């Protein structure tokens, strides 16, 4: 794939013209929608009491319809192709209370866009329509007049004609009514693929009956897959010869889980890619399938596309040259650097050039390609290849349905370099989202990929809890006003460095990489324009937010923040920060005694209550992790700690999910008490059946948040 072709193509995609769709389009949409599947929509359908008691609204019927058409035609410029997609969602909703009326009454609709003109034709057009009707309990049906909506206009002399979209509040809605409405979108694409689509079953309200249906022109290539137990779609060919997919399901529940939910790996849905693989004017892999339905494509099919995309990839970029020049300087300063260190430096340099040079702003795909080429030329890897992999926040790599879906990186001697979160990763450090994931890579020269071979599959290593640590050391000094001044030292390792992401901005990342890469001063980027006073205020704010997660209380203030290590270069792989905090009302009187709420210093935690104590989906923590809190309470003059209260701080809960352990001891001189709290989550993902173990740990932590030490006046 020649990047020039892509650039030329993109340059045609402008300007973007936006305006609201007109009433004629709304009428056309309404005619199409209201005449489909009347059998699904019965406003008098019985609503189960179990739904009525728990929800403001219930979706009686939902119809998700997707239709894609195709046309090829010749003109003076040769053969052209055009595809058109119509998709709409029609819903019938029973409004059970005033909240539902408030929620379902307001709608925004009507956005339209025209993208670019090529040979006097739009390359892409999109129009959106809306329609609604209200079924009253007495059986009357009122169609909503969308022309009574309000135009949201822009421009100096804004009026209805230059409306961008419209808003409406559906008049006359009351609890007990049934609202039926649709959202209709029409896309037209010349040469381009139609936008991919994700159809999901679950919504915020229970769905009594849902039908999903797709109708596709046989010239279009439709590749799709169901995930997380989504039932298989029925397929067929209709009387016009179009390919069809269809499914009906009843009684779709609502997801009630709110903590640690990974929706994309838990909830059933379908991904559809509707491809126009016939255009003579654009790039697609030579292995692309011709028109038809391709359910659950075999991974190798998509992998072959990727291999051929890679084989066809060529570029004309200054990035590799600049990276090699940086490496040259680096080698001079670090003559003993081994291949591992040089590969890390090359990765840092690649990201550095990509970020600092205005002429380079490469996607993860091109960056991976160029990085591999640099390593190959520098002879920095025995086996190196472009790798593709999805993070845990996306569908598994082996279940992708299109070559554009995965993220791209480089596999160098078994180690994956992939677009990291620059602010929290050392070059070459694997972000938690990519850990334990299946990926694939094509080692060797790209030219070899014209002859398709299966990629090498690999699974990235999974870090352990002790690799992802939050370590807080706090020294607490009580004041006369029962407030406390606290000196804090925070260390974050591995995935827990994510908490420190706000402490490194682009300028700071660049400066630290320049130092690490030994870039000569005259070649360094001009210092960041952020004012020190502004940055201080940002850092203070970020520290205050982080402390909100470390301290289980309110109205605290944070000051004297010093970021000692950012955790973004190999010589300092962990994040370290010192700061002071002031926490109010941490001590209370109890007669002559003083009670200190020491549990508040061991992390923010909330009780999981009510329906949340049941679990439907797997529990996704993102990574295994450990939190170590060491709190040193300096005893105020004239007080000594009650030994029995020290003993009450002992906890030891260990189960399959992890552990919660706490304990305290007096210092030898008796002037301070050290409280140690350790929590550990053993695995990044725990099956839903493991929820009781997670709750046990959480309950123990919540209980410890109330932990207190009794200080008594010295006799």
């Amino acid at each position, binding site marked *: 794939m020649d990047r020039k072709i892509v650039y030329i193509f993109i340059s045609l995609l402008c300007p973007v013209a936006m305006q609201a769709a007109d009433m004629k389009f709304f009428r056309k949409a309404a005619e199409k929608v209201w005449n489909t599947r009347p059998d699904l929509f019965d406003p008098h359908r019985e609503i189960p009491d179990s739904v009525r008691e728990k929800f403001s609204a219930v979706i009686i019927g939902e119809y998700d319809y997707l239709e894609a058409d195709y046309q090829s035609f010749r003109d003076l410029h040769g053969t052209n192709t055009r595809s058109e997609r119509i998709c709409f969602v029609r819903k019938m909703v029973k409004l059970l209370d005033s909240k539902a009326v408030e929620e379902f009454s307001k709608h925004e609709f009507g956005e339209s866009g025209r993208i670019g003109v090529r040979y006097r034709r739009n390359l892409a057009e999109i129009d959106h329509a809306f329609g609604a009707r209200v079924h009253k309990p007495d059986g009357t049906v009122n169609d909503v007049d969308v022309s009574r909506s309000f135009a949201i206009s822009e421009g*100096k002399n804004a009026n209805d004609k230059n409306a961008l979209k419209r808003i409406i509040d559906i008049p*006359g809605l009351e609890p007990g009514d049934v609202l039926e409405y649709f959202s209709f979108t029409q896309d037209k694409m010349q040469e381009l693929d139609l936008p991919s689509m994700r159809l999901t079953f679950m919504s915020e309200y229970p769905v009594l009956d849902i039908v999903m249906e797709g109708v596709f022109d046989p010239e279009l290539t439709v590749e799709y897959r169901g995930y997380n137990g989504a039932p298989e779609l029925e397929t067929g060919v209709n009387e016009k010869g179009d390919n069809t997919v269809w499914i009906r399901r009843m009684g779709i529940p609502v997801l009630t889980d709110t903590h640690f939910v990974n929706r994309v790996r838990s909830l059933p849905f379908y991904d559809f890619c509707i491809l126009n693989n016939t255009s003579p004017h654009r790039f697609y892999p030579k292995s692309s399938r011709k028109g038809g339905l391709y359910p659950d494509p075999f991974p190798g099919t998509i992998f072959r596309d990727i291999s051929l995309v890679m084989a066809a990839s060529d570029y004309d970029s200054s990035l590799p040259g600049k990276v090699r020049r940086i490496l040259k300087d680096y080698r001079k300063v670090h003559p003993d650097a081994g291949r591992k260190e040089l590969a890390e430096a090359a990765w840092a340099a690649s990201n550095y050039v990509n970020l600092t040079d205005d002429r380079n702003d490469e996607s993860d795909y091109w960056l991976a390609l160029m990085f591999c080429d640099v390593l190959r030329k520098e002879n920095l890897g025995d086996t190196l290849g472009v790798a593709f992999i999805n993070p845990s926040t996306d569908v598994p790599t082996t279940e992708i349905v299109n070559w554009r879906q995965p993220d791209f990186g480089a596999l160098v001697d078994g180690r994956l370099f992939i677009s990291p979160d620059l602010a929290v990763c050392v070059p070459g450090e694997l972000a938690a989202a990519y850990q334990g994931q299946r990926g694939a890579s094509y080692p060797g020269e790209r030219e070899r990929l014209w002859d398709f071979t299966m990629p090498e599959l690999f699974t990235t290593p999974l870090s352990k809890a002790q690799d992802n640590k939050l370590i807080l050391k706090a020294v607490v000094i009580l004041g006369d006003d029962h407030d406390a001044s606290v000196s804090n030292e925070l260390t974050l390792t591995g995935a827990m460095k994510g908490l420190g992401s706000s402490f490194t901005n682009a300028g700071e990342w660049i400066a630290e990489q320049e130092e690490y890469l030994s870039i000569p001063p005259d070649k360094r980027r001009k210092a960041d324009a952020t004012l020190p006073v502004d940055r201080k205020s940002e850092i203070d704010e970020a520290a205050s937010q982080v402390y909100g997660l470390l301290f289980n209380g309110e109205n605290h203030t944070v000051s004297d923040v010093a970021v000692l290590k950012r955790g973004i270069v190999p010589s300092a792989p962990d994040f370290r920060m010192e700061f002071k905090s002031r926490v109010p009302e941490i001590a*209370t009187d109890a007669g002559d005694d003083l009670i200190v709420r020491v549990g508040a210093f061991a992390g923010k935690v909330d009780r999981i209550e009510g329906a949340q104590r049941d679990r439907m989906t797997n529990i996704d923590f993102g990574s295994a992790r450990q939190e170590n809190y060491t709190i040193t309470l300096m005893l105020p003059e004239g007080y000594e700690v009650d030994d029995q209260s020290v003993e009450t701080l002992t906890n030891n809960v260990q189960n399959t999910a992890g552990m919660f352990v706490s304990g305290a001891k007096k210092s030898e001189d008796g002037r301070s008490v050290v409280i140690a709290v350790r929590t550990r989550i053993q695995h990044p993902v725990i099956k839903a059946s493991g929820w009781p173990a997670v709750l046990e740990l959480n309950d123990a932590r919540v209980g410890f948040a109330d932990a207190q030490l009794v200080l008594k006046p010295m006799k």
Partner: protein
Amino acid sequence: MNRTPLLTFILFLYTFVVARAADASSADNVVICEELHVCTLQVKDGVLCAVKSVEETTYTALHSDGFADALTMYNDNVTIDKASAPGAKPYYRSLEATDAFYSGSRVCYMRVPVEKGKKVKAVFHQTYKAPEHFCDVFLMSPYRKIHSRTVIKVPPSLAGDIRVRPFGFIEGMSLSSDTLADGSVIHTVEAQDLPAWRYEEDAPSSGLSMPRLIVTGQFSDVKALYRHFQKYVDDGKDDDAGIRDLAAELSAKAADRFALIDSIAYWVRRNIRYLAVEHGEYAFRPAPAAEVLVSRTGDCKGSANLIKSLLRHNGLDGRLVWTGTNGEIPFDWDSVPALCAGNHVIAACVFPDTTVFIDGTASWASPGYIPPSIRGRRVMIEDGEDCILTNVPDSGHEWDREDRRADFRISGNDLVGHMSVSMSGVMRMAFLSAYASLEPRDKVSVASRLVAYPRKNSVTDSVEVKAPLAGDRVTVGAQVTEKNAAKKVGDRIYLDLKPVRDMLLEVVDTAGRVRDYMLPYGYSSAFEYTVEIPEGYTVERLPAPLSVDDEWYSASVRYAVDGSILRCVAAVSPKTRLVPLKSIAERNRCVKAIRRASDSQLALVSAQQK
């Protein structure tokens, strides 16, 4: 009538600017070194017909290159004639205020590049086509102003009518008025070194606190202003079958005329959703009652119009009432006969000997309850060609309260018992409106959290919300286990009762604060607890009673032992909602003293140990 959107525009405008400006030029990197705002009143046939506004703002950057966000609002009544600044392009965008569904308000916005040490000027020319809207000129900006001059030019023919006066001027501002030889009058505000006007949590609304010029004289007096409002009122369309039927239905159930008023108010509040459509004259024209009834939506004017109509269909003297709300409008119609003195319409039922005021938008208000927003406000009651100027009774404060009661026993380390929270007045309204916006499945957990407040480690059971429709209270009750609130340490039990559980009794952070503090609600709270003392234990020593009665609060916390029962009674009542900036620290000390007394724990000792 509703000027709320206009005021809200301004508030929103400033919030919007501040949010953006904070990104680009926090710590006052960008400042306004010179501002000249000239407003010229135009006359046609001897009548004020328009106002031309020319605003020239010169920005500079003190520390580094940056951007200035120059913007102004416009709408159907105000046009932008020119917007320019070097290196910036004007963008014209829709910008709806959060409390209006549709007002047609728009913003003209320029992101002006400002080089360090250089000056750059942004210019806006505007025309107020409806000059009655030109009644207040706000003088602050999200940027610090080194010098600013605001000029209002009044032509000779209007010199005797138009009055310009200051409101909320701060140090560095002065107003002067000069009569020129031709009889025209020039009002000039000179201002030096004005601080940036920033959003602050719990600060009084900008409507109450932002310095500005008040311009009156567009209306000769209150009556002329009333006639302006009155011309939008159309009584002709109210003979509607739907209204007749509803009026009859409500009448049939009401025991007497006051019960009928209550039931009309209740019906409108429960069935008419608040929806503000305020563009153009709709800011002043009440929607016809029949239309409000059919659409089941309305703003304050529409709801008031429906109430008026329902009253009249029942032979009662229903009328519209124009007013300004507490917390938003700092003056009344008599002193400022201009649009900026009002933002709200309610209804009234006029009897020979009394008048009952009904706010159709006060959802969940108890029958007869006057919400704090209109309490004591000056009002214009519709009265044919004339109006009645009077005040809404300043009563109902005593209804604004929360009472919490619990009876506990000690079980293990926990306090176990039944707790109830009873709310009336403004607290009832606040709770019920929040409660109504919840999914049914979430209601129990929210009610639980209210009962458990401020503890995060409480377990509740058998949660019950009692809100009788005609009652003046809502009561939330539950069985509560307050975990670790009675910790056993050796032979002692440390009892952490936390009697004062008032959500608004908070210490206000004064670091960097530049504006006054306003308590979100004004209400009193009272607390009463009993705790069964376990057998074999006695209270070591009761905490000293607390009694506070200062400028900010009256409060008390008292414990007593009655046989085997420990009793605690506490009360907190704020004296004022508004706390001037210089007094916040003093108020904080008062709050801390109350909280400290409340946080004090009691040691129960075993008789053996004693």
